[in-house]
């Protein structure tokens, strides 16, 4: 399969990879490019391979660069800061977002302000890979996505890819960025496949991607909510509604220029966020648009989010908790109907 990769040359080879394989590929290429890159975390060298994302890496790069750890999220996160200060580019992987909250102190008190405190002299090139669980009764302690918490803290980058090719390019960019980066991976996306360039390549962090152009309404989505949003746009097209889908790709830096440009064109906005409703990323994006374009909008902006509650483990609850393309379609139709 041959696919068009924007800005890539015709000479680029591509291969079809799943989201997990693309992450594995990015890690391998980062370690090939730079001896200073190493990967660690609970199970990082294990045969289970963290859903395929680390499979085989220890065999290629050895136990010095790919290793397992004790269950000590705070200490491991501080170790990443020290390693970055000591000249390395650490990649620490957490199999669930929920597990890394012990590290909230390290991230907010030490890592995020480290450069500011240094008077702008220090660089803190560390990457935390953080996986968000979804489905199969993951329940309240295996499914949280607290991207908005950390995007709120000055000094951190929060990257949330939605497709295999973006996952590869953005993970390579995260690892080689000189700022501390939370690279948030939706487990739901791991099975999805895409033609991915085989060479190492980089996507600038903080640039949204318009995944579908349209003139009637702007759907702004990120991470696991991008595929349902694109599906919703297809369904809306059948109903004569021409939706534009903007994939934010990162929450911090946040590409508000792309969002505002889209809404300036369409006059309508629905933000689709894989996270809790109150004080979330959707609220921030709608506020930013309202501040710029408020009176020019054709209808009130809307958000499609998780309910402001926990996902219960029962499949009867789990299946209803997460928004789907139908919810995005409904929100867009309400917006189109309103004046």
């Amino acid at each position, binding site marked *: 399969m041959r696919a*068009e*990769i*924007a*800005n890539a040359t015709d000479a680029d080879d591509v291969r079809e990879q799943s989201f997990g394989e693309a992450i594995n590929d990015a890690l391998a290429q980062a370690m090939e490019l*730079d001896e*200073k890159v*190493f990967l660690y975390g609970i199970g990082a060298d294990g045969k289970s391979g963290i859903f395929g994302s680390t499979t085989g890496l220890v065999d290629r790069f050895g136990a010095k660069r790919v290793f397992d750890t*004790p269950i*000590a999220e*705070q*200490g491991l996160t*501080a*170790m990443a800061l*020290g*390693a*970055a*200060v*000591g*000249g*390395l*580019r*650490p990649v620490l992987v957490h199999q669930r977002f929920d597990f890394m909250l012990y590290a909230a*102190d*390290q991230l907010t*008190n*030490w890592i995020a*302000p480290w450069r*500011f*405190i*240094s*008077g702008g*002299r220090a660089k*803190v090139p560390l990457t935390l890979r953080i996986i968000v*669980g979804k*489905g*199969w009764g993951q329940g309240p302690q295996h499914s949280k996505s607290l991207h908005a918490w950390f995007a709120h803290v000055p000094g951190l980058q929060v990257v949330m890819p939605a*497709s*295999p*090719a973006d996952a590869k*390019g953005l993970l390579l960019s995260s690892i*080689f*960025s*000189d*700022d501390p980066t939370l690279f948030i991976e939706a487990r739901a*996306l791991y*099975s*999805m*496949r*895409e033609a*991915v*360039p085989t060479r190492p*390549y*980089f996507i*600038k962090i903080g*640039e949204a991607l*318009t*995944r579908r152009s349209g003139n009637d309404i702007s759907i702004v989505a990120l991470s696991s909510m*991008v*595929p349902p949003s*694109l599906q919703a746009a297809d369904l809306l097209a059948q109903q004569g509604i021409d939706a534009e889908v903007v994939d934010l790709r990162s929450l911090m830096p946040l590409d508000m220029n792309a969002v505002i440009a889209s809404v300036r064109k369409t006059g309508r906005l629905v933000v689709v966020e894989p996270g809790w409703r109150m004080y979330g990323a959707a609220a921030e994006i709608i506020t930013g648009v309202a501040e710029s374009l408020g009176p020019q909008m054709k209808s009130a902006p809307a958000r499609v989010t998780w309910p402001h509650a926990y996902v219960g483990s029962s499949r009867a609850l789990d299946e209803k908790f997460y928004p789907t393309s139908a919810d995005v379609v409904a929100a867009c139709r309400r917006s189109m109907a309103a004046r």
Partner: protein
Amino acid sequence: MNSIDTTTCFSLYRMGQLIRRTEEILLDEYAAKQEMRCPMHFCIGQEGAPTALAPLLRSDDSIVSHYRSHGYYLAKGAPLTEMIAEFHGKATGSNGGFAGSMELAHEEARIYSGAIVGGPIAIAMGIAFALKYRAAPGIVIAVVGDGSLDEGVSYEALNLAALHGVPLLTICENNLYAAHTPEPLRTMSRSLVERVKPFGMRVERFDGMDIVRLHLQLRDVIDEIRAGGGPRFVEIETYRFCGHVGPENDDWLEYRTAAEIAAWRRRDPLPALRAEALRLGTSEQVLRQCEAEIENDIAEALAAARRDPFPDFHSSLDQVWAQSYSPVVTEFVRGGEAAFDSRQAETRLKPY
């Protein structure tokens, strides 16, 4: 070798006196002038460890310290003028005025500190890991107080340090109080070193009021770490003569007895160190000259700090992110929007 030469003893005294007088003068100036507007934790009484350590440190070593860091900053060879400017919040400070006393650091001298108790060991462990990974020279010193061993992260870090065999010396200054709370109210454990030993590293307890002996003891420990012997933990028994924070004496809080304070003050490490320098052959005249130079250096640093400019507010807001990449990154592509089929099914999870 269980003795030191004249030169080393004199250099120890010079450092001890520099730390002591800097703290005493800053303490007086802090209260009188109100020009140093940041919380400061003075180390009067606790000069032993940084003083004993100073001649043992090299430029490729790093220190990550608790917030009572002024002595370690000077011991690491970072400039006095930049420290005092930092306390005044000036652009010429070691951190450009952004850190004050509590997060005092100096990039080139490789000394860092912070206000959150327990962080230093874990961050120092990471720096030491990087040294071992890169097969680079140098060791790392983590400096914490007895209160930091109330924090869980300290044990995570000590465990990781032992597991990875990194070149890390953890110095735990036991001044008997976590801020104002004595050990018996915090733990049933009566030994810091016994808490650390099971992680698989050698531990020692040293007297922080006998600087010459402490220097010799730390010299042996550091020699062994430099030789690849792995991490070590040292408890240093010491006592804070000043208040926990700020220039005021806080003994009115009655968290420690007058008898206890008097007993520790009788063991003030500096007069004994001065006497030892004299005994080893440094003349009274040389000591007085050194003391006068220190007074002069501190006075000049204070005068400079007062003259120096404040940092610019707007540019300070722009230094939060580096917004740069490794030279490995030579070009950016936008990504594969055309290739992605959004109708694919989501992952169906297994039990894990």
